[in-house]
């Protein structure tokens, strides 16, 4: 084949592909894309203590505190849509209108009916519907991340540094990207997580396996304790329990990681705020200054994005929080910003979660900062490696595997 023919063929294939992608994206756009209100927004500006007043409209209280008191440096970039996979979009379209959110008084009754996959509520009208969207948000069917965690305080600096590998099956059921795994479906496991500590020595080889079910049962799991050489069964991720002795609770992971039924939700409204969804960082560790705890001075690009503002009050008396305010991204239903209030109603903690949609779909979770603004202490997560839709089987999350400390 001569080079002219070759170029023509490549061009033709490219044209076909582009048309296909465009058509597909347009369909997905119609459901998922939410153009933000950018009036008064200017891209290419550095937001800092000096000019924060100019961006008042786009900065919730928690974000302002991170800029003013903890050294967060924001550079503004234009909005870009973040869309799910074709499979997820198709399921959303196919199952549109089938889901019904149910306000439950007790914590064991299932709070959704008719859900069969995809985004359950295309146009959520209540806080509960928004949180069901968050629960079933598109994050690929499975994946892993490796991350460093730094526990810090103003007085002592970095108190602890650990490295973890976190493997997860985001969709044990209702898959959209990968073939079904019957074992998860048979057991009613919606989500499975396996976190393995890689260092330091005392925690290395500790494995925490956890299942979240289709029904709001306790998240039972196993913790492999290296010095015992065996896994012990445990309730993992109970309400009010800190993750790994940090300022972040299990329920704070990625903004909210409990069952939607376990919290009473109220939709406070919809607004445009600055969100780091395309943070423009080459490597996440380059975006923070480890010498500047507890805020670590993150330097990230933020874009204007529409969010649902949802207030949550726990149904558990063991909850540490009086209430939480979640800023739920209207396209992805991720929670880039969370404010947690103490029982006296004072703002206590601010959580900034960063996904990087410029890496592809689903966007990897690349950075998280949890700041206790009262005690001026923090927990920083810096992701070093990630993967999605790797094709885990049930055996990768089976207790038998944890039995071997594997």
């Amino acid at each position, binding site marked *: 084949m001569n080079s002219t023919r070759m170029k023509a063929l490549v061009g033709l294939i490219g044209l076909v592909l582009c048309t296909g992608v465009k058509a597909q994206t347009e369909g997905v756009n119609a459901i998922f894309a939410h153009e933000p209100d950018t009036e008064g927004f200017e891209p290419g500006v550095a937001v800092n203590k000096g000019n924060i007043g100019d961006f008042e409209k786009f900065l919730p209280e928690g974000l302002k505190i991170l800029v003013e008191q903890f050294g967060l440096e924001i550079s503004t970039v234009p909005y870009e849509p973040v869309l799910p996979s074709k499979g997820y979009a198709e399921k959303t379209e196919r199952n549109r209108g089938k889901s019904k959110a149910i306000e439950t008084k007790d914590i064991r009754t299932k709070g959704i009916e008719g859900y069969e996959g995809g985004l359950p509520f295309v146009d959520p009208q209540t806080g509960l519907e928004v949180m069901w969207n968050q629960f079933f948000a598109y994050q690929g069917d499975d994946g892993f991340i490796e991350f460093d965690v730094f526990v810090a*305080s103003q007085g002592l600096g970095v108190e602890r540094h650990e490295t973890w590998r976190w493997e997860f099956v985001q969709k044990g059921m209702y898959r959209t990207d990968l073939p079904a795994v019957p074992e998860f479906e048979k057991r009613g496991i919606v989500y499975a997580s396996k976190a393995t500590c890689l*260092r330091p020595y005392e925690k290395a080889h500790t494995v925490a396996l956890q299942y979240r079910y289709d029904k709001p049962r306790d998240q*039972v799991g196993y913790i492999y304790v290296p010095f015992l*050489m065996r896994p012990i069964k445990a309730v993992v991720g*109970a309400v*009010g329990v800190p993750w790994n*002795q940090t300022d972040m609770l299990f329920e704070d992971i990625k903004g909210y990681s409990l069952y939607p039924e376990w919290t009473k939700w109220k939709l406070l409204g919809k607004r445009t705020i600055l969100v780091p969804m395309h943070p423009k960082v080459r490597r996440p560790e380059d975006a923070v200054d480890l010498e500047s705890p507890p805020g670590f001075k993150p330097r990230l690009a933020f874009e204007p994005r529409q969010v649902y503002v949802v207030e949550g009050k726990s149904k558990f008396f063991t909850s540490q929080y009086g209430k939480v305010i979640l800023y739920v991204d209207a396209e992805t239903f991720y929670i880039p910003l969370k404010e947690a209030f103490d029982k006296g109603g004072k703002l206590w903690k601010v959580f900034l979660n960063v996904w990087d949609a410029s890496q592809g779909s689903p966007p990897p979770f690349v950075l998280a900062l949890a700041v206790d603004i009262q005690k001026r202490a923090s927990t920083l997560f810096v992701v070093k490696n990630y993967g999605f839709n790797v094709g885990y089987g049930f055996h990768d999350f089976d207790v038998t595997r944890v039995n071997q400390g594997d």
Partner: protein
Amino acid sequence: MHRRTSLLSGLFALVVLGVAGQSWGDEGKLRITGYVQNQTGVFISRDKTSFETFDGYPYPTNHGDKFGKLSMLRNTLLLDADYRPLSWLRFKAVFRGVFGPPLSADAEAQTPNVPGGTKWAQKREDYVAEHFYNRAELREVYVDLRPESYLLFRIGRQLVGWGETGQYRLLDVVNPVDSTWHFGALESFEDQRIPLFMLRMVVDVPNAHGGVDIVYVPMIPYLDRSEDTVTVPLTLVGAWGLPISPRQGDASVSSSKIRNRVFEYPDRKHQNGRAGARWFGEIGPVTYSLIYFYGHQLSPPIPKYYVTGDFRGVDVTLDFPRQHQFGFSLQGVLPFPASTMLRAEMLFEPDRTHPCYSELKKPYKPPTPEDPTNIAQFLRKEKFTINYAVTIQQPLKVKFLNPREVFVLALQFYHSFIPTLKASSLEQCASNEGDCILEVPGFDSTLMRKHHFRLGGSLQTSYLRGMITPKFSFAWVFAANGFKEDFKDGGALISVGLDFALKNFKVGVALNEFLGKDPYYGMGFFRDRDEVNIKVRYQF
């Protein structure tokens, strides 16, 4: 062995250096973790040693005189290397080097080939330091092969932990234990277990919601030392060992008269191989396991022969009989109050060998003009023994004490009983009435009762993001022949500790108190070992 250890250690270092250019923490790369640690303890008990003289021999009536002496001075370097070049291949090696000087508290160690008395005290201290406090070894060296996702082969020197209830280690029957440097319950299992060369196969059976773990210990010469295939007898050390026995039934067998203790460790030949299997799985909300293991009775050593001859004192031979063990474990979440874990395990020992009252011997080889040695055989009895333990673990929110973190309360109950035991008194044993078996060989003060109990608990929480961790634990030991019948209080252990962690450092301070009325029973054996212990660790 030392030469072999050095060779293996050298190989380990080469492997580490050979691939150390790759950063740890990434999949498929070498990960090295470890720590450097100093652990120092001082005895604080005011107990004094006392003696009585009988037939020209001094016999102790109490043990003590340890106040202000070092209970331990142990320095450790541990390196843990984990290398996964391929998804189906993993290498693991753990090196541990320990260094510690001889301790004056080891003067009472009942070491082989070193006579008793103050004259030889330094030799006994040196023996203990050389054999137990100074060692460099590759504790674990194994390779994992996973040809299929459901199948794992683990070949090499390794540790196996079976069972669920933690502290009581009922089903934890595979590896022997070395607790010569500290009281066993105060140290981690991982540090105390003695690794063995094993062939292990784990097969997942997802359809049955379970899997099977098969273990074979071939007892190959050169791979393990014979003495490392059983739990180290606590008579061999002094600081944390058993005291010299008092005068009892047959005064001739008291520790002070024993010239030599000969331990017949299991020979390293395939006939002495050990094997077992564990099935583990889930039924609904309950996780369970079933185990069977055929091996040796790892502890205590059982007296076998009593030898006298044309020498002063006696020689005693002890061995480690063969044994079958089987049992099961269960663990699950209780429906109330909340997040309550229940763990239980049960172990049956159909042929457990028990030592008998010291006077009970039968002739084995009478002296002759050519060979003046007179050998008698100690009586021993096999008894079906049943052991079970239950643990309840409850996280508690006590906001006024700790508004951020939970308290974890664990309560443990252990019961061991011998259904067919014919209980007897010391007087009856003198005329061989009843079963007359002992809990601790050589101590007639530990005449076996039908039921043995241990009640324990622990409470711990943490403050300031895990920087400060207070801990409290206790254990109470008691025995009886029936309800309120021949009740014997075995004393208690109380431990209060505080850990501080910052950056890579961890400092732990603990006060350990042993309570026991009878100095030769239960916790009373250790009532002169109250100590303050400080552990400083730098980990990476």
